[in-house]
Structure formats: structure tokens, C-alpha cells
């Protein structure tokens, strides 16, 4: 079974080709790293996989994206959130709540998780991303790397089958990178499908396959 199937994907912005006839298939449990220079279309690819192109981001688009065999376009919001979790590149624009706790709870509230289970998952995520001491802190007061960790916690709380990461280590320091890489390794070992995008080779060690874009 393939988790993600990208078929002949072409995306261009105002006539400027970013992706041309790109195909990729990611099996369940695989951890694929997509490498490429800045501006080569890595973020664009992730946006297309989530179905944000062309619905939210305007672009000329052709090709197909299937998530576990279903066209991503035909997934409902709830179904899509259960299958795909994405950490976007810019942590500044992904946090909007008053506290870290709220931030993690936000997605869970949306899919109507009952209160007790929510409490449990929030606890888990805080521990996983090492943000326990910041539970009631405002996201605004955090560093870039901490914000990235909070976003990851908020996304993982929904327990998506596939995790998409857009340069998730970019704002972390050496120690933060090592710690998060170990967390991602654990996730991979648990069998979570991952598609990572980076212009560095920092995530190479946890990738089971590398694709150059």
C-alpha cells in the first residue's frame, strides 16, 4: 500500500514552472527525505500533497495526488487531518493561541476529542517535544526553535498517519537538532510514514530513502 502517490505533478506560478511532471510514491512506514536547493519547489511539493494547491494557493496545476489511494482533493477536512500532518516552514505563522497548551489542544478540539483524552495527549506531546516547562507560556515569547517544537507537538497531537516536515530543524541549535532528530527517529521506528524536506543533509541519518528534487 502506498501512503502518498504523486503522479505527473506540474505546478507553475504565473507561467513560471516550479515542478514539471514530478512523480513520487511513498510506501507506508517509509521515511523519505527530499533534498534540493533553495527555491527548487520543495515547499510547493508539500503544499500540493496537502491539497492546498490549487485550492488555497493559486497556481496552475496538473497531475494527481493520492493519499492512501484517495484523491487528496476529495478528502474532508477531518479525514485529511487524520491522515496528513504538516509542519510548515515558517513557525511564526502557525501559532496563534495564548498558551502552548491551547495550541496543542486546538486541533484536538476541532476533531471533537473528549476532555480526558485531550488532557492525556497534551501531556504526551509536551513530554515528547520537551516543552513541559512551557505549558502555560505564550508562543510569542518563545524562540524560533521552540516554536518549531510547539508546532510539531500541535501537529503530532492529531496522530496523523503521515507526517510532512518542511525544514523542521532549520531554526534549532545543535542540541535542539540532535534532540528532535532522535524524536523523529523514534517516530519512524514506530512506523510512522514521513516525508521530510530539507536543503541540508541533517535528516539523512533517519531517512530510509533520499530523493533529489
Amino acid at each position: 500500500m502506498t501512503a502518498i502517490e504523486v503522479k505527473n505533478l506540474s505546478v507553475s506560478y504565473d507561467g513560471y514552472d516550479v515542478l514539471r511532471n514530478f512523480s513520487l510514491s511513498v510506501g507506508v512506514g517509509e521515511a523519505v527525505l527530499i533534498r534540493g536547493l533553495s527555491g527548487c519547489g520543495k515547499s510547493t511539493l508539500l503544499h500540493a500533497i496537502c491539497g492546498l494547491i490549487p485550492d488555497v494557493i493559486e497556481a496552475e496545476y496538473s497531475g494527481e495526488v493520492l493519499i492512501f489511494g484517495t484523491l487528496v482533493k476529495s478528502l474532508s477536512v477531518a479525514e485529511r487531518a487524520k491522515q496528513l500532518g504538516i509542519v510548515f516552514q515558517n513557525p511564526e505563522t502557525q501559532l496563534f493561541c495564548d498558551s502552548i497548551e491551547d495550541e496543542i489542544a486546538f486541533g484536538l478540539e476541532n476533531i471533537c476529542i473528549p476532555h480526558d483524552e485531550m488532557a492525556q495527549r497534551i501531556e504526551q506531546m509536551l513530554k515528547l517535544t520537551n516543552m513541559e516547562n512551557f505549558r502555560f507560556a505564550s508562543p510569542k515569547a518563545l524562540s524560533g526553535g521552540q516554536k518549531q517544537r510547539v508546532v510539531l507537538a500541535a501537529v503530532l497531537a492529531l496522530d496523523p498517519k503521515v507526517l510532512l516536515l518542511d525544514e523542521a530543524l532549520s531554526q534549532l541549535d545543535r542540541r535542539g537538532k540532535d534532540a528532535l532528530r532522535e524524536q523523529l527517529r523514534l517516530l519512524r521506528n514506530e512506523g510512522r510514514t514521513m516525508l521530510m524536506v530539507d536543503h541540508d543533509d541533517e535528516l539523512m541519518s533517519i531517512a530510509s530513502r533520499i530523493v533529489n528534487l
Partner: protein
Amino acid sequence: MKKPDPRIIFALVLVLSSFAVIIREDLKLMAGLMLMSILCALAIGVDFRKMFRRLKRLLQLLLVVSILRSIFAPSGTILLESWGIALLTVGGIEMGALVLLRFGLFLTSGAMLTCYPVRMLIQGMVQIKMPYEIAYMISVGVRFIPQLAEELKDSLIALQLRGVVIEDLKLRKKLSLYTYLLLPVVVSSMQNAKELAMSMDMRAFRAYQSRTSFFKLMLCPSDIVILCVISAFAVFMSVVLIMGV
């Protein structure tokens, strides 16, 4: 002391601002209302030093309204006159004061709301049965205002660092400068808003008609008491207004 439930404040703000609109002429009643709202605001912990700074600008409004009113609809004793035209009358000043108090009431009401974390306000709105989409829309919208101001400040600083002394520019130049600066700031805010919307979307925002909530507001006995006082106050004010005491 624990702050009252935000829903209580919604009720208070509703009462205060409705009367601020309803009261047309009665200066004494308006002053009483203002006093009441200042007391409430103090009890909640509004920072009045900040408020007064804003109110200072409003004092000019008082003067403008008073003069306009005196010239175009003179009433009461004439205090200042030139070439047979009344420039300042008691009626005009009263009108100006009324307008000032009305604005003051709106400001204090708004300030009371800002004493609460946004999450509490959203939850308050949701728990009085406002659709959660709208509650979130309002809160995210409100959040973008300071961000806009922040970015505008950044680009102004960037400009000053390049050696432009903004204070020395003529007013017309200054205005055109602000419009040039505002455009990219608005565009970048729109981009940020879009990215935020994508992130909320991917975290299942609006997946279903309703959503659960990790954080819940609960009315405590003191809230009920305050609510009763507010209701009694509203009834009292209505009676006074209708009877014209």
C-alpha cells in the same frame, strides 16, 4: 480577587454601551454612567494611565464638537461671541461633553475586554452560543492589528536607519511615504494571514459543526451576584430614562 467570568463583562459592556447610545441629552445621567463604568473598570484592573493617554487626544474632540454645536445650533448662555456669531455656548459645551463621555464609555468598555486573555474571550463567545468560526475570526483579526502596527514601525525604523529623517519631511511627503510603506506591510500581513489559515485548516479547523473545548468557563456564585447587580442597574437606568426623573 478573581476576575469575573468574561460573559459577565460582555453583559456589562452591552448594558453600558447601549445606554451610551440611548442617552441623547441628559448629561447628568451620562456622567453617572461614566462613573459607574470607571468603577467597574478599576475593579477589573484596567490600566487607566494608558487609557488617559488616549483620552487626551479626545479632549480636542470635545472642543471641536462644542464649537461646531455652538455655531450651528446655539443654545443656552453665550460665553464667547464675535461679530454677532456665537462661538461658544453652554449648550454647545454640554453637547461636546456628552459626545466625549459617550466615546469614553466605549473606550472603557473596550479596555475591560482587553483585560482578559483572548482564549477566555473566545470561550465566552462560544459559550453564549456564538458560532465558533466567528469567535475565532474575530480573535485572529484582532491579533493582526498590533502585528500590522509592529511591521509598520519596523519599516519606519529601517527607513530611518538609511538616513531618512521622517520628522523633517513636509506633511505631503510624509503622507505619501506612509502610503508607500503601508502597502507592503498590508501585503505581508495578508500573506501571514493566509499561512495561518493554512495551518489552522491542516489542523482540522472547521471539520465539524461543533467542536469540543479543553478549556471551559464556569460561572461561580460571585458571578451570578454581579450579573444580578448589572441587571438591576440596567432596569434602574431604563426606568430613569423612561420616567425622565
